[in-house]
């Protein structure tokens, strides 16, 4: 099973609220990551986002499920700004894993 989530459909074309993103991740992504073959986060038609939203969606996903989750997740339809936000959120998740191991 593969799940595909359209962020433009679920949030609109402008994404700015990290709390909404975190709620969405907890409800729509986290429970399925382990049992799905893949998760497509489809940013097609999303024009803008900020760090709050993308961190809320992606950083904790990596932190909780580890770097291996990235083999299952596809980021689709990202414009260049969204790509920077996704890369940074992933790095933040990895940094938090590193800190946890260090601790």
């Amino acid at each position: 099973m593969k799940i595909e989530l359209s962020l433009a459909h679920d949030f609109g074309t402008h994404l700015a609220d990290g709390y909404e993103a975190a709620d969405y991740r907890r409800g729509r992504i986290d429970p399925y990551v382990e049992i799905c073959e893949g998760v497509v986060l489809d940013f097609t038609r999303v024009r803008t986002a900020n760090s709050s939203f993308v961190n809320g969606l992606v950083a904790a996903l990596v932190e909780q499920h580890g770097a291996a989750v990235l083999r299952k997740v596809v980021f689709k339809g990202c414009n260049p700004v969204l790509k920077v936000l996704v890369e940074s959120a992933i790095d933040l998740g990895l940094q938090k894993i590193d800190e946890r191991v260090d601790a």
Partner: protein
Amino acid sequence: MTIALPEQLRASGLLPSVSRLGDTSKDCEVVLDFAKLRRITPAGLVLLAATVVRWRQAHRNVTFRGLKHCAVTGYLQRMDLLKVCGCEWPEEFLRHESKGRFVPVRLVDHRVDEMGNEVAACLAPGGEDYEHPMAGLYDLASYVFTETANNSRQHSAGLAYVAAQATRAEGMVRLALADTGVGIRGSFALAGFPWSREGDDAHAILRALGARVSSKPNDPNEGVGLTLVSGLARITRAWLLIVSGTGVLRISDGRPPELSDLPNGGCYCGTLLAMTFRERDAHGFARLLHNAKVDAGLLRTPRVAINFEP
């Protein structure tokens, strides 16, 4: 208490007025005299809006005087300052489309994402299209507004107001937000950070600029909003002013932040942020954001493959 506004109420000379307006004396009557005012920018507009609203919330009776003789009363009306402050004054002009020129004073409500689009589209018409020449300005305005507005809504426990203006002739964009909340140090104090009770406001602002510093434990936003807003200000060589409590932080011309206190022992009950940047420096927002994140330690050399698909 009567407060006579100065000739100019713009971000670069704002601080004495912030102190004056932040006077915490308990007068029930406040008269704001506009007679001498000749120039006001978005920073001055949101300062007045947030201050008057805070006074009204404290049941202080606020009267506006001198509007008949004020050189910019029409502008104050067009920017909706008088409306936000509950002052009725007859309009003697036709309202023209604001798109491409200014964002009137508006309450930052729960629709931060939609407001981000509206503010950005107003300052950078056409930028909604990612390939448009205005796209960089659109992205920068949307990013700065949404991150700052989120801070006001999620941390300040107060009301926030935004205003902005693009002056095409000089190629400058001015964006300002002011809230009536607890201030940056106050939000850290509410969250129980012990250092916030001993430190001063200016250092609390500086601390909030650090990466992954948030006044909310387990903040899903990860506390990078002001970090990146200030980083973008440095990279674009913009002018940034943050006032909170008695503290002031300024960044200009790409230099490190400068801290000070408000003059005359002043205090602003809330947080005010004003940013002025050149349109031409906002091009290529993806690269600017990438560099700001690298500078802040929020984006290291990739260690894993990321599956991006068109």
